[in-house]
Each structure stands twice: as structure tokens, then as C-alpha cells.
């Protein structure tokens, strides 16, 4: 267990992070603790397979199919599996739906928990001290920094992800999107709208 000691082993590594990575990679691959080909396979997953397009499919399906929406809100873990979405950090999923009365927004103040299988690698701002510190105390000021102003009468509920439950915001379906098919709807669903720091795009 690490101690509360200034003498942390990591300080033996170079301080420049690019050199730190290189040193760790050299040591771990030399010792056979890491398979170099596994590194590429991991990156293939997170650079090419998962990403916000998966969450957008879920939202678009919920907008188009009210029975799916009901299943999603009742048990999102099962509902997203219907679309073949699974994986680490997506073990226990809860979908929270925005309404005219309540806007939902997700944060993890203690680290940076995030629904990876639905949204991919979290953006840097989600992992920033500023977001972690401020989202719970002043979500509306944070939203303003994203260009979002909530209408009068809409309250904010911020979900601080302190356990292994991962939250997916289901934004309100934008006006003017009637008649669009699921693929066209999914194209309106931005990453930030599923975290709650943005709203979906409006149809052109």
C-alpha cells in the first residue's frame, strides 16, 4: 500500500511524462509484465471501437422506440446490451432522462468515472480539477462555459458517480427532428449532451 511519505517510488522516474511512459514501457516489457502487442490491442479498442457514437445509438433508439425507452429507463444495463454494448466501466448503467422540469449532468468528483463502453475515453475537461470541483456546486455556471443556458423552471440534478454505477444522460429530443430515422437522430446526439454539459444538435 502506498504510504503518506514524500518518498514515492514514482519520483525515481523522469519527471517529463513522455519520458516516464517510455521508461515504464521499457521496464514492463523487458520484465515480461506487459505484452507489447496487448498495448496496440487496447488502443485499437479505445481509438477505433468504442466512442460516443455508441451512446448516441442508444439515445436515438430511445427517441424512436418508446418501448426501448421504457426498458432503458427501467434497466439500462440490460437495454444497452440489446444493442450489443458491453464492457469495462459499463457494468451497471443507469439512464437519466432530461425533462422540461429537470436537467441531468454527470460528474465524478473523486476521480473521473465515466461510461467508457458508451462514450469512449473521457474528454480532458471531464477529468479536470475545475470540472470535478465545480460541477456539483455550480453546475449552471459550468453549463454557461459550455454555452448552455437552462430555461426558467428547469432544475439541475448532478449525478456524482461515487460507485460503479455509470450514468448516461438521455437528452430531450430536439424540435424539428420529427420523421428522422435512427441514424439521422444519432447524428444529432453529441458526446456532451450525454454527459449533460451540452444539448443535442438541431436538425439542419
Amino acid at each position, binding site marked *: 500500500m502506498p504510504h503518506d511519505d514524500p518518498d514515492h517510488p514514482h519520483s525515481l522516474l523522469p519527471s517529463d511524462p513522455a519520458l516516464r511512459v517510455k521508461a515504464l514501457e521499457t521496464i*514492463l516489457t523487458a520484465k515480461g509484465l506487459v505484452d507489447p502487442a496487448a498495448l496496440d490491442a487496447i488502443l485499437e479498442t479505445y481509438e477505433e471501437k468504442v466512442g460516443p457514437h455508441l451512446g448516441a445509438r442508444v439515445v436515438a433508439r430511445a427517441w424512436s422506440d418508446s418501448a426501448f425507452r421504457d426498458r432503458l429507463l427501467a434497466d439500462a444495463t440490460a437495454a444497452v446490451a440489446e444493442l450489443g454494448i458491453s464492457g469495462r466501466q459499463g457494468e451497471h448503467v443507469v439512464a437519466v432522462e432530461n425533462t422540461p422540469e429537470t436537467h441531468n449532468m454527470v460528474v465524478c468528483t473523486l476521480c473521473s468515472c465515466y461510461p467508457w463502453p458508451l462514450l469512449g475515453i473521457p474528454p480532458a475537461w471531464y477529468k479536470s480539477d475545475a470540472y470535478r*470541483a465545480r460541477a456539483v456546486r455550480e453546475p449552471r455556471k459550468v453549463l454557461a462555459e459550455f454555452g448552455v443556458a437552462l430555461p426558467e423552471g428547469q432544475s439541475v440534478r448532478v449525478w456524482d458517480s*461515487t460507485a460503479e454505477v455509470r450514468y448516461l444522460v438521455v437528452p430531450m429530443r430536439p424540435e424539428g427532428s420529427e420523421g428522422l430515422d435512427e441514424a439521422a437522430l444519432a447524428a444529432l446526439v453529441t458526446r456532451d449532451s450525454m454527459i449533460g454539459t451540452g444539448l443535442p444538435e438541431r436538425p439542419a
Partner: protein
Amino acid sequence: MSRVHDMGGRYGDGAVVPEPQDAPPFAVDWHRKALALTLAAGGLGAWNIDTSRHARECLAPKDYARFSYYEKWLAALADLLVAKGLVTRAELAAGRADPAPLHARAFRAEAVGAALARRVPYARPGPAPRFAVGDRVRTRLPARNAFVAGGHTRLPSYAAGQTGTVVLVHGPHVLPDTNAHGLGENPEPLYTVAFAATDLWGAAEGPGDEVTLDLWQSYLEAP
């Protein structure tokens, strides 16, 4: 307060800087390698997710405050590798190690796809919940690990000693407070509890604003 990572509600951090929706997942090349190395080393099974979170939390405050996200990961990875006896301080200092064959438990390339696509649930059989949706509950004050002084816990300081309402009941989940320290999974009912922003901060930005947290049963008592 517990440790420097427990920053919810803190003042002084400046603006949040949004990024384009289609920004690449890694801003610079070393971020890619930092993530891949951390996941690959995690695949050795020498520590669990709670232990790795605690290793990041245990960074010195001055390091935690100045490190970017992946710098925290790298520092905690190095500390864990030494703590678990997988790498020596001498190897870290030298930046090299003597060659050895692939470790029996190394995370192999051919296993990666399936492993990352697999769910590893934290729900467990365990005790029946004491609280129900709609119940009022009060959180522990101070926020602390009741098993290990200075240990890992998931009750943030800003929500300590506060009264809220249960909105979701998740069933028993692995307790991080013990699991992080090799003290067992000790599953406890997990709840999502909603708190009024006026209670947490003394004043809310808007009427009806709330914050929810996921909290284990031992963090809670009837008010």
C-alpha cells in the same frame, strides 16, 4: 477532509475548457501509451480497481495538484508496481530491467478484445437493504474509512453529515472501503441518494437543484 483528491465543491479552480465533440480521444501520443500501459499492467490482476484509485489518491498533494490526469495514472502505476513487488526501485531509477519471458499472468494481445468488452459486475449476493426509495438518510460525519485510518472511501467530504432522500436502491455492491485494502469485498446495499443543493452548499444556484451520490449502507443512518 480526507485527501487532496476529494475536491467536490472546492473554490479556486478556474474555468472549465470545453473541447470539440469530435476531438481525438488522446491529445498527445504519451497519453495513449499511459492508458495502454496502465490497463495492460492492471490485467496482471495484482490489484483491483479500488486499490488503484487509492494509489492515485495517495499521491502527495503537491503532485496530485500539479499532475495532469495521465500523470496521476503513471505515478500511481509506478507506486503500485513497487508496492506489489513487480518492479524494484532500482529498476525505476535505472529506467531499465533485465529481460525475462512473458509473465504467466500478463495480459495477452489475443485476450484484450474480449476482456475489455466483458462486464465485470460489482453487484454481489448480500444483505437485504435497510432503506427504501423515498427514505430520508443521513451520511457519516466525518467522511472516513472506518476500517483503515486514511483509507479509501467513496463518501466525499462535501456530502458528509448531510441528510438526503434515497432515489435508487441498487442491491449489494462490493465495498470499496475494504476491497481497496485487501480486507475483502464485504458487499453492502448501495443507494443513490439525492441531496438539496441548498443543504450541501448553503445556497443553491437555482430552485430545486440537487446532487445525487452513490452511497453504501454503512455510510448512512436514519436521520
